[in-house]
């Protein structure tokens, strides 16, 4: 059966995303950008660090995998019995790599030449697992080193400490890499099981952008993508927790100044609703305490924050958090000021002119951000992972938002009875200097 092809067009820029439903079940998304010198391909699956508990069709009980399994699998797929995958990409002049996130694992390359040969390599090795006891064992020390590097990173630690307070029942609070203890439990059998469950075409997307042609990519997929009967696995749905009040979590690390991240937990969403709520929450956070806001200026002048301060919205399948983070000698005072501002805006209403300015800025960001093959590729992949929505939905949803939406957002997304303040305080560096 030929692939089903649709063309999604961005009304703002005229960009076109060619969306092809391959008969293997794989979704292929392509943006042809012939003026660019480089091309990018990303082959991703909806298998990330949070997908650890699932029930296969016919099973009575849920199966739980060790933390860090998706990341471990990502590392091990680069193993090949005959030759090095990375060396093969390098011979073509391409750069390959991969990453694992909470909700996805993505393998990718970027190149100026030999795009289709590199794409053949990419689609080939991701579908061909090869694990041995020896190679899985060897990887353990490399991943343990990577994990230790993260443990020394205060930005990582303040974030995961916050998630630990907000989502104690959900695997999102665990580092994507797992722990040294959890990765000790990983075996070749577990890796093969996860590959069979989550790396089938129906669960995957191939995104290409740059100096590429959709037709040629489709032909290559006809040759390379294996048709498989999907093994379905229903993910475990973690129950929503009642608001836990205002938690504070602290620890010390060798840092120069106190680091903090304050997160507001709220009801998770999916698909287009999640994207719209994320955009609205980000705009609302900017309105409250972003760099153009009077509150931000006051906190800077009072020395309570510095130029590292920022806000963000962190949302996925099972979590939704608006956060404010940075450096401060008094994080509690920053959070108090933010909560007071939330109360004030609830009472007095949002500054409409500021909201419209922020919306215009978000539009400008959106138009510029798609002006690179790598960013276009990432946007297509993001939108697939977020339940198959269009990569151009952001601009359309932005246009729908008004200052009147801010009140509802404050009520549902900035709940002051469901907060965790994570603080990393400096510890004595205990320096000593000596000749080796």
């Amino acid at each position, binding site marked *: 059966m030929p692939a089903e092809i649709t063309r999604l067009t961005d009304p703002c820029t005229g960009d076109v995303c060619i969306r092809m439903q391959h008969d293997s079940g794989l979704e292929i998304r392509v943006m042809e950008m012939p003026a660019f010198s480089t091309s990018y391909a990303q082959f991703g699956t909806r298998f990330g660090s949070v997908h650890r508990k699932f029930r296969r069709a016919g099973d009575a009980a849920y199966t739980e995998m060790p933390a860090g399994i998706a990341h471990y699998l990502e590392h091990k797929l680069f193993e090949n019995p005959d030759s090095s995958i990375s060396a093969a990409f390098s011979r073509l002049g391409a750069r390959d790599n991969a990453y694992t996130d909470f909700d996805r694992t993505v393998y990718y390359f970027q190149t100026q030449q030999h795009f289709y040969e590199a794409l053949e390599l990419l689609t080939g090795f991701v579908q061909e697992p090869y694990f041995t006891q020896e190679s899985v064992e060897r990887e353990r020390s490399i991943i343990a080193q990577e994990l230790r590097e993260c443990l020394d990173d205060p930005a990582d630690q303040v974030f995961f400490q916050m998630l630990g307070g907000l989502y104690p029942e959900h695997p999102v609070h665990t580092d994507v890499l797992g722990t040294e203890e959890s990765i000790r439990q990983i075996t070749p059998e577990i890796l093969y099981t996860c590959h069979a469950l989550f790396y089938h075409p129906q669960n995957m997307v191939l995104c290409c952008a740059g100096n590429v042609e959709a037709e040629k990519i489709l032909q290559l997929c006809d040759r390379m993508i294996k048709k498989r009967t999907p093994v379905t696995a229903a993910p475990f749905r973690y129950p929503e927790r009642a608001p836990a009040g205002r938690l504070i979590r602290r620890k010390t690390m060798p840092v120069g100044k106190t680091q903090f991240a304050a997160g507001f937990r709220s009801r998770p969403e999916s698909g287009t609703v999640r994207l719209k709520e994320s955009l609205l929450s980000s705009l609302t956070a900017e309105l409250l305490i972003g760099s153009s806001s009077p509150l931000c200026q006051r906190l800077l002048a009072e020395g309570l924050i510095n130029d590292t301060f920022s806000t963000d919205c962190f949302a996925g399948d099972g979590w939704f958090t608006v956060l404010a983070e940075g450096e401060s000698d008094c994080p509690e005072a920053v959070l108090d000021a933010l909560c007071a501002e939330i109360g004030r805006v609830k009472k007095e209403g949002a500054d409409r002119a500021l909201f419209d300015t922020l919306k*215009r800025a978000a539009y400008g960001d959106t138009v510029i951000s798609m002006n690179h093959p790598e960013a276009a590729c990432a946007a297509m992949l993001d939108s697939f992972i977020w339940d198959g929505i269009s990569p151009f939905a952001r601009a359309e949803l932005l246009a729908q938002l008004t200052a009147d939406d801010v009140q509802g957002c404050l009520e549902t997304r900035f709940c002051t009875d469901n907060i965790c303040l994570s603080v990393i305080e400096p510890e004595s560096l205990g320096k000593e200097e000596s000749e080796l």
Partner: protein
Amino acid sequence: MSRKMTEYAAPDCGEGSTENGLRYTALCSPKFRSCLLTFYFYVHRTKETAPVHALLTDLLTASSAAYKDHAALSLRLESLYAADFSAKLSLCGDDAALVFTASWLDDRYALNGEAITGQVLDLILGCLLQPNAENGAFCDPAFRICKQNLLDDIDCLCNDKREYALQQAAAIAYQGTPAAFSVHGSREDAETVTPAQAYRVWQEILRTSFCEIVCVTPEPKPEIEAAVRGALGQLPRNAAFFDFDAPTAPKQRPAVQTETMPLEQSKLVLVYRYDSIPREVLAVLCGVLGGIPESLLFLNLREKQGLCYYCALQSSQFKHTVTIDCGMDAEQAETVQAAVAEQLRKLQDRDFPDEMMRQAVLQYEYHAAAVQDAPDSTAAAAAAMYRRRDLRTPEALAEAMRQVTREQIAEAAKQLTPDTVYLLRAEDGEEADADAG
């Protein structure tokens, strides 16, 4: 006179013109949806001026005479479709560049047909030439806030352990020269900077610093050059372009230092110096040793021996150094050093496959192509060409790299002399006994 091209193919900028201490280069590519204008003000550094230069990059992008605080300036930029005006201090050997960059959405994407370009130009030229200052001094509270940002940056250098280790190694390797100062300077010097001193230094820079300007737009915009030249041309400028070459002096024996910190992972930094290696030879050497995906360091230290999670390499053409840094367990420090030395011996003995040299050229060609796909990297590449005084196109350099022989690599590798060994040791690690030999 500036160089202009209707379609940007490669950073082929020619010699440019250095009239009135500034050079303006305009590059165009219709694939871009945004415009970018970058100013490089080149300065010599001293211990005392290092923090002032860092402070100025923040001060001049946080407010201006027209927009008195960060929120007002930020709001104005947001209203221009998220235009951005930011700055950084970029180290170039013993010298530095205060790099101010504005980027904005091209006018054709404005929702109501507004002329964004003209408004952005007014805004940024105002920031640079009519700063937030009165009576010969920057104004508070903007100055106080920016100074606190700088002090916090200095205090927080240790947050990123890898960067911290690299900085500590640089301070040892380049001791006695300005390259030893961190990008922010010392806390002691930063604390003494006054609003009047910072203002004086900025006025001095405007009068005496060579200014490299690179503009990248989707289509020719002569009005940008006219506005920039009109504004900066009114200043009495007396500036000459720098020679950034500042080779690291040989040490009688390698400097060796260790420092402990409560960490999970130790960091080892090895600095090697050389006398003179042609750019194309150095590029291939660095690619084979640590630049390509399956380089000697990656293959042997990480993949075969599992000694470290990362083992990266960078070179400083102006300081004539090659720096290798690794993250590993403390007890592996000695083994890692020996393994790095072993890879260098392989280069000296010509014991590496030709394929690695070919891959080094391919990687360079990819990098050169990728640079052209974004306005910021396009501008940075053009400025770097001028700094290096090497105006070869990427194609010409790639061709020169293809002609590099194994003998040239071996001879160049023999020049790499151990200069500095710095270990940031995890507190709980066992005693490491590194040998710089």
